[in-house]
């Protein structure tokens, strides 16, 4: 499917999940897939990670919800989504015909929410894996994000693991002291893979009005600005855990994706780039194949974790 690079093997495995190539689209940046159907050959993608789904529909935050920053953007969408029943009834109808892997991102307010979501989605035709967003606040524990407390992250992971036999990816928050420890506890709790990083919490102010630029005051920073932080965290986590790592954070072109693969990621997700360049994921797939061809490599798997660090 890569044209002149048909001799290059791009297949990767994320635990039990097999992908035709290591390029996925990140949750919240690709809608439910259909939004991009006119502009992207969905069947070329390694997979699509859906907008985060909750048990009940969520309206999201008041506007303004987004603001552009230097080489990036802040968002405080507020997890707007159609809810799991509408997702299964309407959004999956298109997604299961898209010819690509479908990974459903789930989010909740309590451990029980996550378990119920996993149970509901298991067995639905066309769903290939779940990605658990643990960056949400735990309303039963004073609103502290699940993903910032190792015990809570482990509890969510364990509950979802018990509720489903689908491949289970846990998406890690970067807003923690020790990302390696977070990865280790979710591995221990039964995750098949980890994906990272979610957005970094940030803020922007309009100095003329002295008001925050987001109605929610703070939001998640994404885009090329966060890539070095994401790459460092992926490298740390890949050295810490034995499950596959999926790299996310500011990936816009093939060189970015290759850096993450070399750092130890088995796959990557393209996020904010989908907004300004819908063809980004496809261009990255072609670019990875071209790079491997040029380097005389036959399989993308040969470069995963191939970082050379001088000893001493």
């Amino acid at each position, binding site marked *: 499917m890569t044209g002149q690079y048909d001799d290059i093997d791009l297949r990767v495995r994320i635990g039990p999940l097999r992908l035709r190539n290591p390029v996925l689209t990140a949750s*919240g*940046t*690709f*809608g439910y897939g259909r*939004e*991009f159907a*006119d*502009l992207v050959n969905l069947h070329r993608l390694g997979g699509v990670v859906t*907008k985060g789904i909750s048990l009940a529909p969520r*309206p*999201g*935050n*008041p*506007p*303004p*919800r*987004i*603001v*552009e920053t*230097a*080489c*990036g*953007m802040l*968002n405080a*969408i507020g997890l*707007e989504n159609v809810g799991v029943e509408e997702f299964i009834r309407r959004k999956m109808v298109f997604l299961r015909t898209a010819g690509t892997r479908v990974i459903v991102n789930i989010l909740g307010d309590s451990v029980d929410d996550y378990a119920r979501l996993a149970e509901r989605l298991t067995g639905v035709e066309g769903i290939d894996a779940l990605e658990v967003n643990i960056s949400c606040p735990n309303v039963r524990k004073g609103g502290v994000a699940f993903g910032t407390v190792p015990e809570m992250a482990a509890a969510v992971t364990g509950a979802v693991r018990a509720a489903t036999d689908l491949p289970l990816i846990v998406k890690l928050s970067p807003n923690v002291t020790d990302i390696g420890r977070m990865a280790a506890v979710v591995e221990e709790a039964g995750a098949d893979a980890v994906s990272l990083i979610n957005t970094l919490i940030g803020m922007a102010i309009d100095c003329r009005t002295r008001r925050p630029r987001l109605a929610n005051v703070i939001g998640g920073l994404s*885009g*090329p*600005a966060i890539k070095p932080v994401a790459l460092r965290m992926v490298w740390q986590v890949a050295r810490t855990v034995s499950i596959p790592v999926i790299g996310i954070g500011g990936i*816009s072109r093939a060189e970015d994706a290759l850096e993450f693969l070399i750092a130890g990621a088995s796959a990557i997700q393209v996020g*904010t780039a*989908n*907004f*300004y*360049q*819908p*063809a980004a994921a496809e261009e990255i797939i072609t670019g990875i194949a071209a790079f491997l061809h040029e380097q005389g490599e036959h399989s993308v798997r040969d470069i995963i974790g191939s970082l050379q660090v001088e000893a001493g």
Partner: protein
Amino acid sequence: MTKFQEKAQILDRQELAAGIYRLTLHAPLVAGGAHPGQFVMVRTDDSYDPLLRRPFSIHQVSAGGDLQLLFKVVGQGTGCLARLGPGSRVDLLGPLGRGFRLQREDPVCLVGGGMGIAPLYFLGKRLLQHARLPEFDPVLLGAASQQELALLADDFFGLGYDVRTATDDGSLGHHGFVTDLLDQVLPRVSRVYVCGPYPMMRIAAAKCLAAGVECEVSLETHMACGLGACLGCTVQAPDGYAHVCVQGPVFEAGEVAWQ
């Protein structure tokens, strides 16, 4: 409606007034499917700063596949676009969003303020495809000054519309808000199309509602994708939120919870 991504060559750049530009692009795919009120997302280069595309309403299209944008330099994105001249290429996504509903027979009124005039010209031209008498359709145009407004007003005169103008400084037409001109024409029109600054649209919407006249407004917000994926371009609707990029940018006035 199919959306396209297209590298469009700039054919012409006209500076209508200080900081106000009209760009003509060759974009046959986007122009071919475009409907008045729809918009395009524009990326000028591969730079990461500014990172996001900028939305622009479509000012007019030609049968030959050309498309025009009308804009004022207000920030980084419009600044980048204004620096490009003939021969340069920009990347377009479009046509996007829901446009105006075309009224075929009864008299209509177009109300434009500042750069909000941009999509109304496309609308004004397309309305004429349905054998109407434009001299019975008032077009109310407002801007800061005669310099900003005169050439744009001439375009509508050229189409045969009943053009009336208002300027903030009184240098052309009525000295005051363009919405002041609405009262006398409302009794004889069946639909009003409005695009301009938010307070202007709010006033126009209220006047139409009070007069029982259908009113459509074209809203503008920040947006990252234009495709319904980022969910960033939210506005308050009576029953929750609406997204400007897919449910709009054109809304019935009653679909907006005016602030």
